[in-house]
């Protein structure tokens, strides 16, 4: 499998505050997901729970390229996206444990959370279904001429659903301000891209609609950020949709109950060692002098505190009142 080239080092470096934020946001997602996995193990989270560990650079880099009012939509592997949009870790964790204080009052769970305030439109369980919906959000932006762009995330597996191509056609036809982000973590459950896709270069999937596509190293947060800036600018300028294929990797099983026998332990280990988005970025910032060792440690400690507080909140909050069973069905 071809990997996009890593950026040359050393470089001038990003604004130090932004670099720190990148590192912090990625680490928050990692620690949050580790805690979620632990709570699942204790039976405090039920059903499906799809962790984002390994893919953190994707949402952190993309989110930084957005302007206020831009929207985000994704599938069920959504905890990272929510934290990146600024949703409160307490509310996200409490939704995972099915409590009244969760973002969906405990009714949605891991796969179904929304935040109108942060312009996060879910949290969708049906593979591919979010793609036309994200396209429709972009339609509303163009209709209202509000200048906003919709980031529509989907997986390599989802890239084979028919509705993706129906969306591409309409988005190109009507020049809709949408950025399609294919999170290519190389597997859809146990099926590798090579086993499911006639053309594994997913960034080219818009070719027959004249939608430009770009392949990006999704393990390099700055590369993601730069590509995100280019792509959102393109979509915002009225030129229509654009596709980014972000090469990334998930470390954990597809969901908590996937033994992941379709790949070797060595394969996972190699990615962790050679391409981990957080470890490498931390080292890079140290080398660049943007961060000191004690600052890194301090961040980790602060984040562990936030995550533990979220876990306590999520386990101490009450379950929803039984009256909630019949609410929120109709307006």
């Amino acid at each position: 499998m071809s990997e996009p080239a890593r950026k040359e080092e050393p470089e001038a470096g990003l604004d130090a505050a932004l670099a720190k934020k990148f590192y912090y946001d990625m680490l928050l997602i990692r620690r949050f997901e580790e805690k979620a996995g632990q709570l699942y193990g204790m039976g405090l989270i039920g059903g499906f729970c799809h962790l984002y560990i390994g893919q953190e650079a994707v949402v952190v880099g993309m989110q930084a390229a957005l302007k206020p009012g831009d929207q985000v939509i994704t599938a069920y592997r959504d905890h990272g996206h929510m934290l990146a949009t600024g949703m409160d870790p307490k509310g996200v964790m409490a939704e995972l444990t099915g409590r009244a204080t969760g973002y969906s009052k405990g009714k949605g769970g891991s796969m179904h959370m929304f935040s109108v305030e942060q312009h996060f439109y879910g949290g969708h369980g049906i593979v591919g279904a979010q793609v036309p919906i994200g396209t429709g959000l972009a339609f509303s932006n163009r209709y209202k001429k509000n200048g906003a762009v919709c980031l529509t995330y989907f997986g390599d597996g989802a890239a084979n659903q028919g509705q993706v191509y129906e969306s591409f056609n309409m988005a190109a036809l009507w020049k809709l301000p949408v950025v399609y982000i294919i999170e290519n973590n190389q597997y859809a459950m146990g099926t590798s891209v090579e086993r499911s896709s006639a053309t594994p270069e997913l960034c080219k999937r818009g070719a027959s609609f004249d939608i430009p596509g770009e392949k990006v190293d999704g393990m390099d947060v700055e590369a993601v950020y730069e590509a995100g800036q280019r792509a959102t600018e393109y979509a915002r300028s009225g030129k229509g949709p654009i596709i980014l294929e972000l090469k990334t990797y998930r470390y954990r099983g597809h969901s908590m109950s996937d033994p992941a026998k379709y790949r070797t332990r060595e394969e996972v280990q190699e990615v962790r060692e050679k391409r981990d988005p957080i470890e490498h970025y931390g080292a890079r910032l140290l080398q660049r002098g943007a961060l000191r060792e004690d600052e890194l440690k301090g961040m980790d400690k602060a984040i562990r505190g936030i995550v533990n507080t979220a876990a306590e909140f999520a386990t101490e909050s009450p379950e929803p009142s039984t009256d909630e069973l019949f609410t929120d069905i109709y307006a």
Partner: protein
Amino acid sequence: MSTQILMPALSPTMEEGKLAKWLVKEGDEVRSGDILAEIETDKATMEFEAVDEGRIGKLLVAEGTEGVKVNQPIAVLVADGDDAEEPESVAAIQVKGAREETKQQAEAEVREEVARGKPAARVADDTGRAEAALADMEVPEGTELVTVTVREALRDAMAEEMRRDASVFLMGEEVAQYQGAYKISQGLLDEFGAERVIDTPITEHGFAGLGVGAAFGGLKPIVEFMTWNFAMQAIDQIINSAAKTRYMSGGQMGCPIVFRGPNGAAARVAAQHSQDYSSWYANVPGLKVIAPYFAADAKGLLKAAIRDPNPVIFLENEIVYGRSFPVPKMDEYLVPIGKAKVLRAGKDVTIVAHSICVGQIVEAAEKLAGEGIDAELIDLRTLRPLDTATVIESVKKTNRIVTVEQGWPICSVGSEIASQIVGKAFDYLDAPPTKVTGKDVPMPYAANLEKLALPTIDYIIAAAKAVCYRN
């Protein structure tokens, strides 16, 4: 300062497991993400990773130990001396305020519903008549009964039919190399090869339609949906193409295909993954719809479905997959499509169910017997054609009927049965036909709400008592 590492739950249904292997030893330094151990669940061997950093102080459970309970401490992690934080014992986090709904509440609610619900208006139609009464296959005296899981019974049915007929093939997401998302197709790739056991991309509308075309072309596809929730992507091909073609072609050609997979609520998988499609498909002329509970029926009906020249919807249930029941050991065990089964004879009330709810009515009947109510139980097994004859015959005897299903109440299987009974056995009824169904809401995620949203044994008992005018 030290932290206990607890035995993790590694699937929604796991309660205990085997600590198969330690990958660390006492004294090892670990970091988050390091693999600590291999743990065997009921379905698979899983790796278990560290979350916290530190040194393994002690291993509390020896490798190879079976039956280790979830949340039992299995090791002690010692934090690095210089950076000693608060002792954060994960065991300290407890579920707070998990509220069990009381039995009385359930009964009161059901009674109220029963009191409010008036029987549907008389409908004098004739649809849903069972085909010519079919009898279950004779199982010769002395036939050995083998206890197998429903999962194995389904696999055996497919394997037997694939051995018998080279035009039968299986297609779906993760059916081959992964051995099935729920392990129904375990071993089939090995036996039949990649030409007949085919992993598809995630493209339900596409592969359902492709299956229809393959059936038009003379093959006999078995199309697995990972769950029926995802078949909504494909429902146009199922109904417009598979179900209607025989009629539209004036009988020239049909569509011999089986669409199968788990249906209904699993555990805590929320609104988009927990729907019962029984009445949806039962509504469609041209389809046959099967929803078995017992392993023998799963096997015999799936074999019959694969041989049937019509499109068949085969609704399984994830929670039932792991249950074990006896299956006759015979070369050819077939169960007729369209025939309900009386599971228990009784004189006071008829209770009807299909799929997972059959297990509930069996339990409810035992409890009712303890209270002096003698229930007759019917497992519908097939929903279309619906065996109304068997149900009517029973109601003529008991004069009362309760139907049980997970689906929503409006236009449900129970609605149809009530309509049939009112139309055809009105004079025999001593109480309004009563439905126990899933609640009329999308499935909530929260554990307490999910419990309220599904039929329970308490609801069934309360409904049975209500139609018997007993408290």
